[in-house]
């Protein structure tokens, strides 16, 4: 079994117009910048993008939005130090927003990966974000029914990967990445280093390879936050 892919361009080659794409990371932490930029090079349109945020500055998801690739964002917090790309299009009615509380977003993605079509959460009960959703009372307390969230593709950032698709993450770069691996039909991970099978201790695997379809090595990955502070743009 060898899930390694030679280049980031090959890794995103199947992502097509109209696809739903989960993109890992929380702000710049754990964000797969090289895969996102390879996707911008390929240029599919009309994407639904699922990420905690909605881009920052003129790189990463911000640059995808600027390139006109994103029809809809599903996120919890479409604000950042430089949210211009999303904000302008949103206020112009050119991009759709599905706003989801952060914990509900995480749980909906996990549910998608775990074959749980719906679950109940106290989160958002009594607020406008619960409007139209079924409410049920359990043990005297009201809960909102939320649905699973799945995607055609997930692009994530790991630290170590092996040819079986096993992954580890770096520090708080874990965040949404392991969940998104579970919830997409096809998951592609960029990792700092590809090791041989067995090169990751089986007890230290965070994402088992069954959830990952392709692994591409990006030896010295860029960090979104550092790029933004340097005023970088893409392309």
């Amino acid at each position: 079994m060898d899930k390694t892919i030679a280049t980031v361009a090959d890794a995103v080659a199947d992502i097509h117009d109209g696809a739903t794409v989960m993109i890992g990371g929380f702000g710049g932490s754990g964000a797969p910048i090289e895969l996102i930029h390879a996707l911008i090079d390929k240029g599919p349109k009309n994407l639904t993008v699922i990420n905690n945020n909605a881009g920052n500055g003129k790189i990463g998801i911000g640059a995808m939005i600027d390139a006109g690739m994103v029809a809809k964002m599903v996120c919890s917090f479409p604000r950042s130090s430089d949210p211009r790309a999303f904000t302008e299009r949103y206020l112009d009615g050119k991009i759709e927003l599905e706003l989801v509380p952060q914990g509900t977003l995480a749980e909906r993605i996990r549910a998608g990966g775990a074959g749980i079509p719906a679950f109940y959460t106290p989160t958002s009960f009594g607020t406008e974000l619960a409007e139209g959703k079924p409410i049920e009372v359990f043990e005297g307390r009201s809960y909102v029914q939320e649905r699973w969230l799945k995607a055609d593709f997930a692009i994530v950032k790991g630290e170590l990967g092996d040819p079986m698709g096993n992954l580890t993450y770096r520090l708080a770069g874990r965040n949404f990445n392991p969940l998104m691996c579970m919830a997409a039909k096809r998951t592609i991970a960029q990792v700092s280093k590809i090791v041989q099978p067995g090169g990751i201790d089986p007890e230290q695997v965070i994402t088992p390879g069954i959830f990952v379809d392709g692994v591409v090595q990006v030896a010295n990955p860029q960090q979104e936050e550092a790029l933004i502070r340097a005023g970088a743009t893409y392309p």
Partner: protein
Amino acid sequence: MINDIKLTNAQIAWRAAQDIEDGAYVNLGIGFPEMVAQYQPEGREAIFHTENGVLGFGQAPAEGDEDWDLINAGKKAITLKPGAAFFHHADSFAMVRGGHLDVAILGAYQIAQNGDLANWRVGNKGVPAVGGAMDLVHGAGRVAVITDHVTKDGKPKLVAECTFPLTGVGCVTRVYTSLAVVDIQDGHFVLREKLPQISLEDLQAVTGAELKLDGPVADLIVPEL
């Protein structure tokens, strides 16, 4: 007569193993289905999942080398292959329910022509125990059954409707028996392969619902094991 010309359990397991693709993620039910792992075709490597949180395990260790923290769902000692991973039970069943397994191969008391499976209890007596059976029938890309074609007292196991308590509804897509390979399609048994020594009529006589034909019926290979 039927009992003189039939595949052994090992031969049924061998046949099921021939359909497992290289790189497939596979869960084998406790007991007889575990034998399938021994007959992977040369050059193909499946990755085996066990409900208690291991992906990528290998053969049983030599006697005396067991580590009883490293077991499969049948509580038998296992070993690891390179690239194995551990995870907790909720993640393990996320793999099952979430559609991440390619194949699950299970035993059966009865399989109905609509794909219903009964494999967890035969009546209301004794202590019921279900384990992971009801989860495994959901989510895998293919749910296959390996079984003798008939019960020990000669009754059909492939039936029009299950009479034993169900494990899952409409979940089985292929059955490998001691006499035949049968697909389940659109609420019917469709015969794909049979032992050449048995006539279609004799096979139908020990099958509890109609065996439809949909193209040629191949000879079921009898491997020398």
